[in-house]
């Protein structure tokens, strides 16, 4: 019996979408992912309770659910970012450690499509992290104060819609730093042979990059651009701490200071640093994925 010729292979976009679906399917069955996302919520809720208790103790209340949510997000962000980083470290290593990568690489999938699919999956995981953070913090803010306007002595300082808009923008900017950190996790993962190894090496690297904050902020240089001069402190190279820049801007709102523009030099610098790191780690991951003999 002879067989008919095979149909033409799927396009790159379709292949990447299928790989992402496969990644999401296997990750949704893995206990580490369930525990990771669960931990984000579990930390946010007692964190909110403790934060609220602290407010009651010193008789300074947020007055607005949004203001409460902003402060809570700043406190939960570091933990959630670390958990997300560890989970993204599993993206390649879960395939490599179980040997299943050889089946993926013997399907009509190019190595670059495979790498891009990991970035797409990481983007979805980042989005889910931000959604959990957002909903968790806003939910707790609503629970304690409701999601009304920010007022002082019945005088409306900021409307609820303005508060909502700014928290949405800040959350969007957070994605830049988280994406850079995910890129680092994918690079580590692509060189690892075990899941535990990927997480340990990843955390060491994450700690090293974070430790660059100890470089005094006063050391830096100035960049002349578009007729303006901008200051670039070397401590900005700790891109993990760039995560907090949108939150610092956001944190001004509850004190009554309006946010005139999100396009400040701090935010641009955060995007440049995060983008630079993201691209460097993408190149490192691409080298491993293109050259590595994963079947060994």
């Amino acid at each position, binding site marked *: 019996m002879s067989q008919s010729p095979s149909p*033409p292979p799927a396009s790159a976009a379709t292949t990447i979408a299928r790989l992402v679906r*496969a990644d999401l399917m296997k990750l949704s*069955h893995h206990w580490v992912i369930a525990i990771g996302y669960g931990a984000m919520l579990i930390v946010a809720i007692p964190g909110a309770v403790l934060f609220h208790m602290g407010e009651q103790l010193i008789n300074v209340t947020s007055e607005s659910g949004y203001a409460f949510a902003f402060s809570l997000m700043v406190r939960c962000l570091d933990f959630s970012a670390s958990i997300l980083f560890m989970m993204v470290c599993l993206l390649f290593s879960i395939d490599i450690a179980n040997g299943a990568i050889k*089946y993926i*690489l*013997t399907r009509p999938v190019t190595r670059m499509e495979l790498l891009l699919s990991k970035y797409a999956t990481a983007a979805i995981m980042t989005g889910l992290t931000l959604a959990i953070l957002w909903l968790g913090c806003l939910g707790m803010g609503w629970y304690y104060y409701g999601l009304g306007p920010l007022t002082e002595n019945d005088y409306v300082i900021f409307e609820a819609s303005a508060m909502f808009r700014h928290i949405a923008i800040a959350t969007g900017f957070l994605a830049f730093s988280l994406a850079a950190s995910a890129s680092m996790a994918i690079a580590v993962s692509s060189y690892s042979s075990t899941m535990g190894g990927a997480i340990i090496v990843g955390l060491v690297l994450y700690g090293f990059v974070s430790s660059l904050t100890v470089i005094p902020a006063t050391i830096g240089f100035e960049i002349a651009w578009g007729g303006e001069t901008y200051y670039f402190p070397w401590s900005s190279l700790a891109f993990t701490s760039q995560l907090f820049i949108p939150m610092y801007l956001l944190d001004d709102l509850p004190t009554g200071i309006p946010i005139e523009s999100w396009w400040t030099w701090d935010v641009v610098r955060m995007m440049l640093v995060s983008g630079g790191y993201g691209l460097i780690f993408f190149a490192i991951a691409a080298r491993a994925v293109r050259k590595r003999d994963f079947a060994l």
Partner: protein
Amino acid sequence: MSEPAAIEARQLSKRFRSLVAVERVDLDVAAGDIFGFIGPNGAGKTTTLRMLLGLITPTEGRVRIFGHDIEREFKRAIQPVGALIEGAAFYPFLSARNNLALFGNISGHRSHARVEQVLEWVGLAARGDDRVAGYSQGMRQRLGLALALLERPRLLILDEPTNGLDPQGSREIRELIRRIRDEEGTTILLSSHLLAEMEGVCDRLAIIANGRILRVGALDEVIGSDSERLVLATSAGDDERAAALLRERFSIHAARPGSNRLEFDRGDREPAEINRALVEAGIGVAALAPQLRTLEQAFIELTGTSSAVQ
């Protein structure tokens, strides 16, 4: 237009620094064949298969699958291929059915009926919902074969497919391999160091050792026959008289491995001449034929090793 060869490898070499793992291998597997690829452990079988599948890049040479270059047209070349290489490996936290569905989704072949069919073929239908973590090595091997068959491949590349299976399981897999070729028209490249199982399944085979192909061809061509050595089967009780005649008339000293059976080197004597002498002496000749060799004999002769051969 004739169908292109299922596999066409030319001058395939792979070096890992100073180690030459595979050297100038030429391989042609015609569509519809069951092609055996045999060699002792470390001969270069798996490295060759990994190059055929595009898992590693050859240092030199090229591979075409059904006419498509594996490097330049990877997706087209690999599309019709199913493979089980270097042992089966799956996500242990997923069930067999979920593993098959996951890999099927990657290629867009989502057929519940096909998943059930291949699980049935490899004898795992009843355990398909169990997590792979609880599977024995033999069950994982069966699942690996099911995955290789999932997308109705035109070319199946199987590396040591009966590893970890008991004798009954090995026989079932050999029967399945023949059935797949006959029913689905699949070309099969089978790599193994188990000579007996290759002898019973393959149409053509290649013997590889130290990274080089030593012999390739149809099974009987590769095995060959030892035309110098004859086997004589006599009527009951005639074997002693036959041995005496051979010794006295032709100076041939025959071995007697069993009753009424002699084996001897004929030297420059023609078999017809020996047969005539035996018949004229009234010895009952049941059969006189060149001694057939086994694949193992041919293999040992070519590779000079039997240590890795079972």
